[in-house]
């Protein structure tokens, strides 16, 4: 099976449980199981090849410019983790099927679980660190959803938030580290990075990259001082704890350390940081675990401790330690997942996880007792079980380790850690199962159905088999170790065996087991002392830090975002000016060599008008009507300027947009005060003026600097000029660019325009549906109305003009491909022609004659443009590829037809619809405001008594 399919299957399968839950819980569970099974089988197909040392790869270039490729590869390490993820995943799916109650939404649960599974498989199979980061964040997110699965539990929500904060923060740090790593290696592909050990370790970016990556690994794998989130994540349903928080997700950090081991390990920094963090985590986690009264909390801290153990082994940097780490990952995954499942069974059957309330379950739940005891003894490191083997290897490594110039520190700490580990394992057995049977359990415990004890039993079989016959696991462990070591070391010639003779490790192991039993015997007094000791409460510290951050950002936000739009605008203008100035003065520019155009009197006159109009606008803006007139003057001069400077299309567009904008603002002004009161002080005005002048100087300086230089790079415009006729079949390059070269942009833009018009429509509807409606109805016009609302001359003139203007619109449209014009301009012209009818003959009259709703016209426009684009697919071309040809229908002249014309029709319709819908919405507001509606055109006063009752106009 292709590696892509293995990664994709869980993601695709995640869609199914949500649907299959309709068919029942069994169907839902089976679907999820089969999805995992299919991926697992697909993976197992590759086992023979990988075990013989092959590396299987699959590649798709996704964004090669950024070095982000969908590259996957499968070596021993990836295979090992993928097997754990999918294998334990299947057991957890079975277990969860029986664990979840009828009140839980099982479809949702399996969907999250499969999402997590896919992300996790993605992490271990991907060959690109950028891709890895994406999967990494996906595991954090799906873990958040799973921890908070019981949304009604406050602890679940808090735990989920904490886990996301801590692992998400680490993930962000890791993004930085990974980018640095890719920068040093010159590639983001893991297989390439792994070849660059010397380059990476000698780079000065090595230390920051290492620290950031380790931050990501330590937060994910709950290493000190980030260990505190894991126990709080125990609020999750137990299948989640067994899967994410013991077997897989918390191993992602370990996996990454193992994956990058060849290039990152072996330096002093790596050794000091990783080994000591692992050692502290191991001892501290084990110590806290002993005194936890919640079953899952005990297991959570023991997981923290074991993760510390693995981390420490990876930190050591010798091949033997790496081998021990790999072996312990396997062993820990088996016994710890089994233990979590038994904890879930006990919770499920007795309705409590509080250890002091339990005890004596041995007789009541014999099957569970057997499974839990075997798994716990393996955790304690008792011979003939798999935990013993890897713990021996760890102690063996520790016995020869020197840290901080001390020969004793590591061996003693490791022994103490193992001792605590034995103690809490024994406590799990004795305080839960041994002792007298009690009669006050919250429920009547008995062994659960097979579906619940089956999965942990299977895992315990593995525990025993590997414990008795370690040589069975040896090929796998050797192959994985080889993959971890890469080119950085040789796989040690060690055989996994139960008996190595009386070694220091065996003595340390003996001390640990005996000490563990003694500690348990003295548990009662010791726990009293422990309870009396002052301990830092991680959650309180975390909450305090988060609270502080929230308060700080709240203060900053309220300070900056205080509701004063004016202040934001001022800050924005000044910041942009300052950044621009900074860039200008620190950057490099070419010399100002471009020959400038001579100064002509006509543009000078235009310029003078523009400056005068703008100046007046600033001083006279309080008279709003005058301001609109002046703005219109500015707009007209801008259009004339475009025309003068060889941009006829822009001139036409600007002019027509100017018309509709002014009409729109006039419609709005109808409701707004006609004057702006003087409110700001003269000092304030001076300050604002200064800000404006600064920004103006900056922009004009920049514009002048650009215009007095030639292009810094070769422009792509020549391509458009050359191919406009050859490829696009039109001589108006601007129009061909719009409808052909950059047709996709234009397609997006007409959609945006349509959305803007729909927003205006929706806002109008909302206003008219609310209290504003009554206010509008009671509104009296603030100025006397013209006695002649619809002057006869104007009505007649506009109606005579309508066909002529429409003809002009069609003409402008048709010639657009070759001469100035096109869909945009034609659309605006036609819209103006229609708006004029509204103005001259009144809203009601015009509205009654509109056959198609404007929404429909917008939609039709977008559809026509889209369908024209899709048409190219039928000829095997990409979206919006255009074609054209020349036709001749006698007796007419030969003429050209281009598919771009169809696209332009779409543009035309969308523009007409959008402009009309906007203006009509404004006019509808006016209709509600007690406006006298003239149903009859050319009617001087519609409110007169003898109004004609019949329609007179056709």
């Amino acid at each position, binding site marked *: 099976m292709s590696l892509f399919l293995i990664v994709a299957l869980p993601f695709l399968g995640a869609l199914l449980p949500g649907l299959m839950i309709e068919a029942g819980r069994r169907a839902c569970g089976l679907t999820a199981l089969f999805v995992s099974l299919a991926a697992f089988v697909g993976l197992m197909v590759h086992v023979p090849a990988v075990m013989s040392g092959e590396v299987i790869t699959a590649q798709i270039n996704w964004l090669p410019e950024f070095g982000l490729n969908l590259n996957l590869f499968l070596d021993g390490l990836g295979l090992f983790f993928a097997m754990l993820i999918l294998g334990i995943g299947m057991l957890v799916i079975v277990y969860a099927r029986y664990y979840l109650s009828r009140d839980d939404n099982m479809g949702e649960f399996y969907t999250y679980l499969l999402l997590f599974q896919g992300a996790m498989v993605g992490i271990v199979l991907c060959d690109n660190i950028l891709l890895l980061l994406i999967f990494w964040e996906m595991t954090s997110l799906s873990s958040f959803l799973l921890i908070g699965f019981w949304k009604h539990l406050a602890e679940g929500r808090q735990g989920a938030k904490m886990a996301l904060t801590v692992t998400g923060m680490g993930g962000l740090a890791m993004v930085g580290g990974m980018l640095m790593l890719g920068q040093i290696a010159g590639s983001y592909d893991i297989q390439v990075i792994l070849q660059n050990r010397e380059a990476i370790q000698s780079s000065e970016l090595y230390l920051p990259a290492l620290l950031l990556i380790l931050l990501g690994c330590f937060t994910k794998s709950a290493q000190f001082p980030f260990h505190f989130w894991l126990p709080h994540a125990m609020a999750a349903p137990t299948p989640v704890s067994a899967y994410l928080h013991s077997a897989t997700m918390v191993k992602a950090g370990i996996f990454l350390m193992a994956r990058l081991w060849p290039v990152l390990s072996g330096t002093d920094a790596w050794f000091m940081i990783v080994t000591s963090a692992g050692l502290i985590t191991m001892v501290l986690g084990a110590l806290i675990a002993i005194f936890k009264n919640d079953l899952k909390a005990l297991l959570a801290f023991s997981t923290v401790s074991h993760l510390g153990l693995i981390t420490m082994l990876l930190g050591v940097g010798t091949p033997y330690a790496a081998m021990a780490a790999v072996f312990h990952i396997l062993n820990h995954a088996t016994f710890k997942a089994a233990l979590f499942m038994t904890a879930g069974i006990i919770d499920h059957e007795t309705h409590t996880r509080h250890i002091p309330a339990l005890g004596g379950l041995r007789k009541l739940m014999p099957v569970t007792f057997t499974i839990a005891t075997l798994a716990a003894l393996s955790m304690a490191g008792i011979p003939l079980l798999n935990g013993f083997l890897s713990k021996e290897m760890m102690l063996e490594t520790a016995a020869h380790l020197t840290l901080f110039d001390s020969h004793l520190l590591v061996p003693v700490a490791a022994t103490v850690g193992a001792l605590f580990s034995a103690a809490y394992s024994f406590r799990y057995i004795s305080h839960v199962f041994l002792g007298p049977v009690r009669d006050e359990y919250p429920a009547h415990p008995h062994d659960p159905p097979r579906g619940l004890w089956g999965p942990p039993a299977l895992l315990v079989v593995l525990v025993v088999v590997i414990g008795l016959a370690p040589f069975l696991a040896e090929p796998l462990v050797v192959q994985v170790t080889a993959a971890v070591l890469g080119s950085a070391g040789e796989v040690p010639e060690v055989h996994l065996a139960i008996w190595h003779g009386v070694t220091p490790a065996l003595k340390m192991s003996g001390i640990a087991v005996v000490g563990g039993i003694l500690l348990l015997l003295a548990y009662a007094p010791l726990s009293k002392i422990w309870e009396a000791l002052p301990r830092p409460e991680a959650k309180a510290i975390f909450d305090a830090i988060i609270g502080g951050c929230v308060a700080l950002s709240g203060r900053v936000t309220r300070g900056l975002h205080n*509701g004063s739009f*004016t202040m934001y*605008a001022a800050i924005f203008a000044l910041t942009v000016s300052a950044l621009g100035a900074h860039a200008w003065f620190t950057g490099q520019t070419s010399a100002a060599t471009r020959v*400038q*155009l001579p100064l002509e009197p006509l543009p000078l006159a235009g310029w003078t008008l*523009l*400056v005068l109009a703008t100046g007046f606008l600033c001083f006279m*803006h309080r008279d*709003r009507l005058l*301001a609109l007139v002046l703005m219109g003057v500015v707009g007209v001069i*801008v259009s004339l*300027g475009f025309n003068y*400077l060889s941009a*006829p*299309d*822009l001139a036409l*567009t600007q002019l027509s*947009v100017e018309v*509709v*904008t002014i009409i*729109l603002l006039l419609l*709005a002004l109808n409701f707004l*005060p006609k004057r*702006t*009161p003087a*409110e700001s002080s003269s000092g304030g005005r001076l300050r*604002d003026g200064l800000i*404006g*002048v600064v920004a*103006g*100087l900056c*922009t*004009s300086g920049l*514009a*002048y600097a*650009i*215009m*007095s230089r030639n292009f810094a790079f070769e*422009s792509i*415009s020549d391509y*458009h000029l050359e191919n406009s006729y050859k490829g696009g079949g039109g*001589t108006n*390059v601007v129009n061909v*660019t719009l409808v052909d070269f950059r047709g996709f*942009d234009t397609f997006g833009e007409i959609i*945006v325009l349509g959305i803007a*018009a729909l927003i*205006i429509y929706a*806002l109008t509807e*909302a206003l008219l549906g609310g209290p504003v409606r009554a*206010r*509008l109805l009671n*509104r*009296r016009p603030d100025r006397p109305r013209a006695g002649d609302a619809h002057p006869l001359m104007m009505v007649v003139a506009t109606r005579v003009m309508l066909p002529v203007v429409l003809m002009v619109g069609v003409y402008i449209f048709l010639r657009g491909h070759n*001469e100035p014009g096109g869909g*945009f301009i034609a659309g605006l012209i036609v819209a103006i022609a229609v708006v004029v009818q509204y103005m001259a003959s009144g809203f009601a009259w015009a509205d009654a004659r509109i056959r198609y709703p404007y929404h429909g016209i917008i939609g039709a426009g977008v559809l026509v443009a889209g369908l024209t684009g899709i048409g190219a697919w039928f000829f095997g071309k990409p979206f919006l590829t255009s074609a054209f040809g020349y036709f001749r229908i006698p007796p007419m002249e030969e003429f050209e037809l281009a598919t771009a014309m169809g696209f332009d029709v779409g543009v035309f319709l969308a523009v007409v619809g959008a402009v009309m819908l*906007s203006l009509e*919405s*404004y006019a509808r*507001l006016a209709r509600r405001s007690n406006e006298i509606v003239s149903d009859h055109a050319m009617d001087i006063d519609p409110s007169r008594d003898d109004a004609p009752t019949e329609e007179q106009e056709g």
Partner: protein
Amino acid sequence: MELLVASAVGVLTAAGIYLVLRLRTFPVIIGTSLLTYAVNIFLFASGRLAVNQAPILRDGVETYTDPLPQALVLTAIVISFGMTAVVVMIALGAYLSADDDHVNLREEGQPEPARLDEPDAPRPGDGATREALQ
């Protein structure tokens, strides 16, 4: 000629920003319209200036002005209409529902803004609406 265009961009920007910094919605909208002109001219000018070289292909003509900024600015002009229309509708809606066309939230303890010179009929319950908006 380049100086004229550059200074026109500057004048429009300065006036636009000055108006954007006013306290009522209407001048702010006029200000953004002026800024739109400035930005469009600026973008257009980045293709450098040329007279009588419209990008309409003709036989025998070799030099044309840069068509690309023109195409970009053309859509920008149309889109800016859409933007103006939406902003004006939002401003209008706010004014109609709250009887207040200030752009800034009133700070606590600050006096009621000067009444507008609207000889309109009294509007019921406008005080309550304004409070609800803040």
